[in-house]
């Protein structure tokens, strides 16, 4: 039972982690908060199911296409909406309102396009289960975990090894200095939003077969991913992952060994205690003020 629980917790935890990285990226790059991350996951899942099930494309192509579209969507939101609003003199808090309406638009347009019932994502693998440590596990669950890990590694490489990644980090550290050095700061901001929604969309496609695809699937995941990212150390990539996995474990084990009635009550309670003890998160991230 413990092995099953650990695998389950790792799976949902890596979902939280990947979505949480998105929050961190957005915050690092622009100091803003997007409330639409969970719905990006939902939208990505719908795109994925459209490509894979209705257009009959191979899974990997469906995943890549979704990622490209989600990247452009994120970029579009930052370049066309957020920046324009700020240029028009909006205070940063109004971006919250902007992302709230974006999330409502995403949810309702998905409902109108794809209907309000749960869509079944067809199985990706032929075999129904794989044995790990004597426990049978659905391969889709492992896929979620695998994609989560690949995304994390790829992102880390991108941010530390490529020129553009390094300039993104530089821009996040000091906008003025970075633009003085010839870094295209607006582009790095847009890219950060793009990557954030791309990650959420990608993980949305891989959780599709596990959870099914429906319009409200992202709401709670978005919130819990945010919780994980904050506890881990907001803006820190590893923090987001550790925080997400921590939240996944907490949630799964509380409902398995204590009580599921009070599950979220206890989980959030523990988070509050963690925050009081470690007000800067597990990874001790400095807060921009």
């Amino acid at each position, binding site marked *: 039972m413990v092995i099953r629980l650990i695998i389950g917790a790792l799976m949902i935890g890596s979902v939280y982690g990947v979505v949480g990285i998105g929050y961190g990226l957005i915050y690092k790059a622009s100091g803003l908060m997007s409330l639409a991350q969970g719905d990006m996951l939902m939208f990505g899942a719908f795109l994925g199911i459209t490509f894979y099930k209705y257009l009959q494309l191979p899974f990997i192509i469906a995943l890549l296409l979704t990622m490209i579209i989600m990247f452009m969507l994120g970029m579009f939101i930052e370049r066309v909406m957020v920046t324009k609003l700020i240029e028009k003199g909006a205070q940063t808090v109004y971006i919250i309102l902007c992302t*709230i309406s974006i999330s409502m638009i995403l949810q309702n347009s998905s409902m109108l396009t794809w209907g309000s019932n749960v869509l079944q994502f067809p199985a990706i693998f032929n075999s129904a289960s794989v044995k790990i440590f004597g426990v049978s596990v659905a391969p889709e669950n492992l896929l979620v975990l695998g994609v989560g890990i690949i995304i994390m590694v790829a992102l880390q490489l991108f941010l530390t090894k490529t020129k553009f990644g390094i300039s993104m980090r530089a821009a996040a550290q000091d906008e003025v200095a970075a633009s003085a050095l010839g870094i295209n700061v607006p582009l790095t901001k847009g890219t950060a939003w793009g990557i954030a929604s791309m990650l959420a969309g990608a993980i949305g496609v891989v959780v599709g077969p596990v959870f099914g695809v429906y319009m409200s699937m992202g709401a709670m995941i978005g919130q819990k991913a945010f919780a994980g990212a904050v506890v881990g150390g907001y803006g820190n990539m590893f923090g987001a992952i550790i925080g997400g996995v921590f939240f996944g474990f907490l949630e799964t084990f509380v409902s398995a060994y204590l009580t599921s009635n009070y599950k979220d009550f206890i989980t*959030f309670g523990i988070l509050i205690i963690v925050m009081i003890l470690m007000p800067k998160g597990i990874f001790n991230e400095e*807060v921009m003020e």
Partner: protein
Amino acid sequence: MEQNKKSAGQIINEKKFLILEIIIVALITAYMLRGTYPSLILCFICINTIAVTGLDILFGYTGQVSFGHAGFYAIGAYTSSILSIKLGIPVVISMIIAALVSMFFGFVIAIPASKLVKHFLSLLTIAFGNMVYIFLSVTKDLTNGFSGILNIPNLNLFGFRFKSNQSYFFLFAAVAILVLIGKKRLIHSRFGRALIAVRENPHAAAGMGINVKYYKVMAFALSALLTGLAGAFYAHLIGFISPDGFNNNQSNVFMTMLLFGGIASSFGPLIGSTILTIVTEVMQGFVRYQMLLYAIFILLVLFCMPNGVSGVIANIKSRIAKRKGKKVEPRA
């Protein structure tokens, strides 16, 4: 300080403007009060105004974000209902107690919250909202779980039994106006200036001898008091409450109303709750498309008025003032 700068003429002009506004609003209100349904909408406008004003004091003036105000709303609603049903306490008193209980929770939350900023605070308030919601749904003996509390008694004040939406409206409107005036006076007092100082720069404020923690906690408590009171009003108006009305969604509704109307402004909460409550009802005609249209509407308005509706009004006023100023002083 600002008021001293204004010339006598401007004040008179502003007063004229205000009187005109009040007359228009009063006429529309009187017309709406002829029916139960428009009165119900008016009641909700007042309730939302009170709750959103609470959020404004915390978020707009003190700069402490909250995504869990539905929690206070719920505490107010449940406390008042339970007290009036199970203990038979008169509704007026139960409402006041409810607001105070909500304030108490505001204090409790504020103690850890005053140390946190930005997303840590967002998370804390999200956690608080979720915890209240779950608490309501699992403590079946107290809250009757998801089945909700039915037959919440009507308000009875000095022998007058509030039954119709119209009668409730007069009470709620009076309270809402008092709250708005009270907020304005508070903000222009020493207390209010301290809150704004805390928002603008907590370190500088502390340097100036302002007890930052004290003001943060007080803002939280005051905010919780108002939102809790609104919750109590809600419960007795509807007569039925269940956890369904107090989830995250409700917190987002308050946040949307506040930002839509404009933060840290005298009439922002009123404008935001009025327009959005009415627009929601108008959209009912579009059945399945209503939420989409509602979101697009908000986005469009946001693009026309990037700092909320009241931001535009402030802009217009300052421009008028500027133009007048130019006429008086030929060249500065």
